[in-house]
């Protein structure tokens, strides 16, 4: 599946390849790699003009933050396998099953702490199984995780019997998912914390370098002594754990969950990671800062359009267009570099 290599096998874009006086300005402003931020600023100005009384408020910031937090966590979870040249299509399904599992375990009398821990372990086990299928059995990650996501969706229905699960209120669990800290919804801070750790790992450690090397050329990575199989396996376990964390945060935020909650998060997260890969670093790699910029950009666009009276399907449309646009941009950068 050729697309599996695209997000990471992208050569540096306009920053390094642009030559000539016209593109010098482009490079100075970093329009290529900071385009997301410019577009974001443009969107803010646009909506401030279109719907000033509703858009320019603190509640807009809170809403966008709350809407983006879980999407960010899913997107951050995806960065790890995508950096290694793998796709994890099951990450949203992992979120889905984790969101029902963590409430179901509490309903069965387990404490919030134990329920969260067990749910994270479940995420790791699912990720390990993905890793086994991809690394040991040798199934293309696209196919293996696609199958896995269907299995997990069935699992989520088995847990809930198709009913909605509601958290006990008040409880510590729900408190942790709701309310604000320093003016922002608590889930935003969880996403920030995960982003900080992931930023350090991807940008500052040898493990991060190995991940990107594998994404850049798996055989060359093996020949320079990288334990390619281990890193790829670990990347899928990581996305499993982070996907489960996203599900836990979502359940706490909503105070409820149901079996069909997961799938809606897949496309926005993928759009953000692939769009983010064209941002900030300018070398085509799935990266933390670029992904966060992309999440916020997409969330702002969708929220603003909805305030301006756009129909409900605008969110799917916006995310789909962003995904296609991101991959097209990346391919163009790739061709320019070649």
């Amino acid at each position, binding site marked *: 599946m050729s697309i599996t290599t695209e997000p990471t096998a992208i050569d540096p874009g306009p920053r390094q390849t642009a030559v000539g006086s016209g593109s010098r300005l482009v490079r100075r402003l970093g329009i290529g790699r900071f385009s997301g931020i410019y577009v974001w600023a443009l969107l803010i100005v646009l909506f401030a003009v279109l719907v000033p009384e509703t858009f320019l408020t603190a509640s807009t910031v809170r809403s966008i933050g709350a809407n983006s937090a879980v999407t960010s966590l899913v997107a951050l979870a995806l960065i790890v396998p995508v950096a290694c040249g793998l796709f994890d299509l099951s990450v949203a399904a992992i979120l889905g099953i984790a969101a029902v599992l963590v409430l179901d375990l509490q309903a069965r009398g387990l404490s919030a702490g134990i329920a969260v821990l067990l749910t994270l372990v479940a995420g790791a086990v699912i990720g390990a199984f993905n890793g086994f299928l991809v690394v040991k059995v040798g199934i293309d990650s696209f196919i293996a995780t696609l199958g896995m996501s269907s299995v997990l969706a069935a699992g989520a229905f088995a847990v809930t019997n198709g009913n909605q699960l509601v958290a006990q209120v008040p409880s510590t669990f729900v408190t942790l998912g709701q309310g604000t800290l320093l003016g922002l919804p608590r889930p935003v801070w969880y996403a920030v914390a995960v982003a900080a750790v992931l930023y350090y790992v991807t940008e500052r450690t*040898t493990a991060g370098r190995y991940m990107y090397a594998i994404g*850049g050329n798996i055989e*060359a990575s093996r020949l320079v*002594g990288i334990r390619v199989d281990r890193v790829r396996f670990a990347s899928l376990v990581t996305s499993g754990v982070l996907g489960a964390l996203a599900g836990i945060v979502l359940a706490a935020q909503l105070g409820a969950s149901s079996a069909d909650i997961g799938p809606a998060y897949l496309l926005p997260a993928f759009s953000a990671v692939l769009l983010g890969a064209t941002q900030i670093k300018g070398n085509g790699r799935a990266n933390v800062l670029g992904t966060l910029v992309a999440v916020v950009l997409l969330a702002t666009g969708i929220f603003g359009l909805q305030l301006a009276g756009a129909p409900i399907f605008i969110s799917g449309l916006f995310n789909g267009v962003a995904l296609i646009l991101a991959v097209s941009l990346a391919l163009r950068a790739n061709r320019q570099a*070649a």
Partner: protein
Amino acid sequence: MSSPDLRGGTAGNGGATPALDVRSASKTFGSIRVLHDVDLTLAAGELRALVGENGSGKSTLVKILAGYHMPDEGTRIAVGGREVAPHHAGVSETAGLRFVHQDLALVGALSSVENLGLGRGYGNGRMRPLAWSRLRREAREAIGELGYHFDVDRPVATLGASERTALAVARAVSPHTSTARVLVLDEPTANLPGPEVEQLFGLVRRVRDAGIAVLFISHHLNEVFDLAESVSVLRGGEHVATRPVAELDETSLIELMVGHSVERHAGRRPSAAAATVLSAQRLSGGSVQRLDLDVAAGEIVGIAGITGSGREAVASLMFGAEPAAGTVTVNGSPIPPGRPDASIAAGMGLVPAERATKAVMLGHDVAENLSISRPKDFVRRGSMRRRLEYQAAAGWLEKLDVRPREPRMPLAALSGGNAQKVILARWLRLQPKVLVLDEPTQGVDVGAKEDIHQRIEEAAGQGCAVVVCSTDNEELARLCGRVIVLGRGLETAQLAAPISADDITAACLADTRERSPREHHH
């Protein structure tokens, strides 16, 4: 499709009209003339070998005949007395020129029946159903006439090597838009195990007996003597001689190919003053069989051999990139095969032949490609330091004269020679005990080549044991104190300094003569 008519003589078989008549074939690329007024005439039913060193013009000539290259003005080609101007493959095909290339152009997942119809149809209309029973019968007849009997419904990938070759030949000689008059076999034995070569020869003779002229291209001179009736020699793009093989022996043929008399060194070993660092015992894998090799500290050992000799597999086996039988030790400690990380930990480094697919990390800049061999060198207080990476990279770019000296450039954007220097520096910076290089200067310009050679010598000077596998015999002669020559997976000769490129060429071409079981026929 109908089966090839091999028994009956075909038109153009008799009389003086040659099956193939090439006059003053020339080809110029840019300002370089790679083929110079070559004449070649084959009678119907003649079995002719075409030999020459790499770069002698064999492939260019074949590609002109196949319609792949447009020849220079003045080139005349006639097939069965009719002049043809092969502008593309279809014209050659219609004229009766047929080709079987080394890779055979078969689709492994399809059956023999299906492969036989590729490019020529199945004798039905485009949207009409296939007449399977007729096609099967014709396929069985087609291979039967070449002396083969195998299940024509099996996927081609499951057939033996010589069966696949037979199928490719059957497809080539089957009447299509015209009757086959000339069959060109381009290194048909390169991928065949020894016993199957004999079977292939039977097949070629049957084709010849059917009145088709066969032009047989091979690097294996013993095959030339065993199979062909006459041989044409190209050298430096010119036709040097065409002789009956009966008038030649191996030495005189090699002399025709290299252009002067050859002196054969054999079996001399250098005095082993330094300690052995790298040692391989009965190393087998890929096409290599039971290779023994010791390399001392500071020694540069070359591995030579024609394509298919096993040379191309040696580097990855020595380095332990692939699972293999036998043992490799570095300073006495065994290296587990298939574990590059363990090889590197033991002090080895590998510069692979295919740079783009096996060495360059896409989307990584020069500095990152350099540091990837041991990124922990740039970690300070728990964090990788970009600044240190760029500093170190700048130093190496300076040292190896890489241009541009820009550690932030994507490596993929550098020219071949400059990129190769960076890949070499990736290992040099670790000061390896053993360096294994596969085609270290392939696709590299002359200046960069010399730089790379100097760095290799410098590494050896510092005690590194170096193995260089190369098809560039000049390179081996320039670098190596000792050259191991491989043929059909086995060591066939060992040359010691002083070595000339021609010595190596001669030893490579002479490869299997002594070992061939077919030798007894003569």
